[in-house]
């Protein structure tokens, strides 16, 4: 029944969970200032509940700021980084932070910290730093990559 090439219909099938698809997610905005990361997270949770595969979540632009483990939001608010880290652990998700965007904004893992002679790193559990090629690869491999931006 999915032979129809009509993309609108195909997206309807995605929403109805009729045919499991391979999804990519791209988060373009940082935490709290914009809702993009929240919406992307909710989308990821809903997609996983419906049985879809999430091939990769790619963080770009200010989206890389979702990956700092140093954020300390008020206790009665959601913890955006922890939420992503926990979802990654539960579902073995691949959370990838763009290295070029991360370097500009001071998001470092241990390797990057050493490479640039910095005295600290801040990458959160479940996230890894890699190149933009990971986004292009997701576009090639996935049925659809959904962008969450401003």
């Amino acid at each position: 029944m999915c032979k129809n090439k009509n993309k609108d219909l195909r997206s309807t099938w995605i929403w109805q969970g009729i045919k499991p698809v391979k999804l990519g997610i791209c988060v373009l905005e940082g935490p709290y200032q914009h809702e993009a990361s929240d919406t992307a997270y909710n989308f990821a949770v809903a997609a996983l509940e419906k049985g879809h595969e999430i091939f990769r979540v790619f963080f770009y632009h200010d989206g890389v700021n979702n990956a700092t483990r140093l954020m300390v939001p008020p206790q009665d608010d959601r913890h955006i980084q922890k939420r992503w880290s926990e979802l990654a652990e539960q579902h073995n998700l691949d959370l990838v932070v763009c290295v070029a965007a991360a370097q500009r904004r001071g998001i470092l893992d241990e390797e990057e910290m050493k490479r640039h002679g910095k005295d600290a790193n801040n990458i959160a559990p479940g996230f890894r730093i890699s190149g933009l090629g990971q986004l292009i690869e997701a576009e090639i491999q996935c049925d659809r990559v959904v962008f969450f931006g401003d």
Partner: protein
Amino acid sequence: MSDVKKFLYVNRKAPHGTIYALESLEVVLIGAAFEQDVALAFLDDGVYQLVKGWDTSELGVKNFQPAYTALGDYDIQKVYVERESLEERGLSEDDLIEMTYEDEDDDWAEKSSIRIVSREEMAQIMRDSDVILSF
């Protein structure tokens, strides 16, 4: 990865004021290595990215406009610019930088990559694309 998809990079934002344009360009340059069918679209304030004569000296940021003219070297041959977006901003094709590619099928003749298209045509171009990266 043998399957080739039709990629469309959609640029909607002004070149300065935010980093979207610069970081979009970085994706295009990296993506060029993956040998996909690549096209670029410029609409809304994104058309300002192609307006010639940038001077960023007083902004204190790098002038990355030369990178657009180099896209032909990355085998990017299709640059769609929306006519309505130009007109709404008092711009025409004459205000845009030159973007060219060498046509392999025509004895490597240098040709313009820029194609001015209507909003309706742009919608069709988006429909015909497998992958849309919107920045």
